[in-house]
């Protein structure tokens, strides 16, 4: 039974990612805010390769929050860190409908893999959410920078 459940989940994930190219990126219709940095708005401009948000050297708190404007039923988040060398980021992501109760959708707290141009895809059972938060814990082990090129959110309005 457990196997069937896992297989179903896998199939569901595959279907989602296969159809993603045609699905609407809800983040493009939303807003974004950050705890630091100057130009968080480039993270939801639909461009995975160009400008990136630089959280700057702050006191260990780099959080980006995408606000979809209204509660949506979302199932996939794609994350594109800055890529281009050997640096890697430790992070986790949460979502919330009311900005009070958050649910974790991605755990990269132990990540040591440098990001690539393909980004990271997180799929999950559809959940009602308006706010998607990315918490960056470090660049490499203790580096105090956070760099993100793009966040995309997929689901239904």
């Amino acid at each position, binding site marked *: 039974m457990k196997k069937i459940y896992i297989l179903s989940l896998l199939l569901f994930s595959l279907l989602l990612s296969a159809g993603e190219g045609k699905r609407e990126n809800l983040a493009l219709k939303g807003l974004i805010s950050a*705890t630091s940095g*100057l*130009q968080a708005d480039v993270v939801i401009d639909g461009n995975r390769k160009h400008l990136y948000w630089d959280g700057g050297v702050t006191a260990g708190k780099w959080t980006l929050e995408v606000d979809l404007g209204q509660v949506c039923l979302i199932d996939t988040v794609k994350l594109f860190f800055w890529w281009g060398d050997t640096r890697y980021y430790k992070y986790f992501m949460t979502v919330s409908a009311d900005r009070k109760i958050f649910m974790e959708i991605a755990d990269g707290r132990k990540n040591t893999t440098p990001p690539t141009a393909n980004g990271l895809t997180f799929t999950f059972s559809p959940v009602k959410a308006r706010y998607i938060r990315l918490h960056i814990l470090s660049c490499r082990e203790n580096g105090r920078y956070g760099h993100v090129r793009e966040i995309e959110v997929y689901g239904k309005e």
Partner: protein
Amino acid sequence: MKKTYLYILASLLLTPFLHGEKGEFVANKNIYPFFAGPPPLNGKYFLNPVNIKKGDNRYSKIITEDMTKGVVNTFHVPLLENTPPVYNRLMVREIKIMDDAGNDITAKGVLSAKAENATLRYPERVTDKDLSAQSCSYTYPPQRGKDQKGWYDFSFTVPVKISSVRISSGRPRVEEGDEYINLASKYAIYAEKGSGWELIDGTETDSNTNPEVVIQFAPVRTKKLRIAINGQTSPGKVSMKHISKLKIPENDPFFIGIRGANVYKSFTDVIMDKSGYEAWKKAHPGFLGFPVEEWDNAYRTLLRAKDLAGMLQKSGVSSKNADRIAAKIVKPSTRKEALAGLKLIHDGLTGLHFGDKSKMIFLDCALAFNHYAMEWGCGYVFIETTSAGYQRHQPQMYFVRGASRQYGIPWGWYIAVGMNGKKGYTDPDYIGTWSMNAAGGSGGISPSLNKRDRYLAWLSGAEMVRNEVWPWTYCMDKDKDGIYELSPHGEVMKEWYDFIRKNPDRGVSYAPVALGLPFEHGVSPIQGGKVFGYFPCNAGDIMTEGVLRAIVPWMMHKIKEKPQEWAHCGSPYGDIYDVILPETPSGPVKAEVLKNYRAFFMNGEHSPSEALVRRFVQYVKEGGTLIINTRQLGKYFADSFLGASLTGNTLPVVGEIFSPDGKKLFALPAKYEFDEIRLSGAEVLLKDSSGNILACSNDVGKGRVILTTPCMLVHKNAEKTSFPYTAWKKFPFINWILDNLVKDLVPVSIDLPEIQYGLNILEEGILLYLFNNEGVHKTGSTAEKLDEKESRTVTIGLKKLQADTVMELRSGKKLKVDKESNSFKITIGPGDVAVIRIPVKDLK
């Protein structure tokens, strides 16, 4: 008549005493320079800044080294007081409408809203009495650097008398921050009138900076009110907000780097707090200036961009400024236009630096813009050397040293340690946390090249060496105890710095020859190629590159011949050249500058103005030697000055080349043409097999004019020569000139042509530096290997100099001068440097 006769007679009698010996090329060979030694920058000793945070225990060993004592902090601040976001949106959190009795009547109106070319989301939120950012009305998609227009209309069932409107717009840039973005900076309020709208007096603005603004006006009776949001952009403010917050240690010199103040942003609209800046500057005498990094590379990129709009977008430039760049800078049709574009960029950059040109520090890398920055008023320049192989470092120095002397402005050397290779551009990273660390300590240039750059910087008169990739390149934790030791590059820095402290008198870097280039030269000293990286080369450009390649043979070809790390390269011609631009917008080069050069060798296309010709005539009369080609004469030189006149015929050079007495000098590897001349006082220096005159010499006053006639000294099809990496046929006329200059102006002889050399003149002696550039093997990802078999034993002839012993200063060894040959020998290892002090008492 009698006076004239006596003058001619006296001239004839005195001529042999006024000029050099017969057969010599340069009229005045006096070695002693006129240039004063470089003054200390900012009253400090030669600077070698490395940033070490006080109290950082990792540096506890390193800070005991002298080389880390010259503290120069570099602080970085944002360009604008409030940096505009990349994208603009219409974003309103709340609107409140009050009647003339002070009642909130917003809820009585029926709201409709629209935005131009965008979707306006959640307009109803502007009346929900929630001021939070999560309850705003906004547009999508956002506009890049442009205003987003839109409006909110309120319709009332009966006419109401309205006297004020409150607009809450934008949202904090960051959580818990007090800086707002996407503010309604431009708005206006209208009342319905007939079938249209009438602006309510006093409600229009284009400079709102307040997220909560109450607009009051004389009461207006209307059934419909429009709140038009016309934009979110406003001129950026270059203020002292960020600079005044810096904690600057007293007495230490420092730079301030302004993030984003680059070529791409040079058309940004700004307003400056100039008086605040001037007051701050007065209180901070240690302020060295604002580095403006690699403006040459950025400008070249602009000119060459295939997808300019895309490139500017990538660089975060607003579409408004991108349009300005496209209109004013891109696709110049002439070199003058290209330079005019660069001047616009420069002026724009000045606006981003409080209008203080004197504190702008321009850094050149691929192109030589040093003279331009100085002509336009900068206070300091750097050259940046990097990589090996396809980049040659010495010509960069010739350009900047010349510019420095022409304008009396100091210069520095920025050593970038990266190198291109199979793994891309790598830096040496012995610590392991630098971003370009793919090759670790084996990345980047060799320690040997780092050493040669450092010694050349010091000896050629730089005031400062800046060290890129500190501490990764220079420090390493050898024993893994958390405390840094010196890496191989760090050891190089230490040895060099200890040397310059131990031998502080570097005298004056000896450059008796000026290479005179046209003002719009656009040369890339590191590799030649297209002018401004954009225009195809003409014959004059080929001549200039031919001269540079003769002095510093092109390493790209040498790599094929001999695979090793090239960036410096020896030749018989030495590092004795300054690049001077004789004709500038501010006038001809000053006589006080010209007099420092024994020979002025015109390179490239020129058509000298009357004023410059007068200056050259004065220069020659006072002892200078002007070397000029028939194609560079323009229309103002008198035949009597040249001792020759053009017949107007251009003819093929015939056969081989001979001295006046018929001695064969050289053959030509390609077809040349020359401008025929008729002599009227000059003496022949070169002729071809048919006796055609290819160079002549005319003595004027204490000096001499050498007129060459082969067209631009390059062969007939030289303009078709591909650039910059293909091999060239040599240009023997150029080598002939350089041979003669070296013979007359270098007071020593060096028997090995592959040895790089230069001289510094001391009060009582000469410093002679010798670089053996051979035998260094290094790629972007492999460690340095030195081939001891490539050591060189060099014999240095002292010509007319007299000394019993000389001393190599790095080793402290005395070397005996062989009396019979008046020479001495020294062995220099692969990639190594010798600095020899030759004591001479009667130089003056």
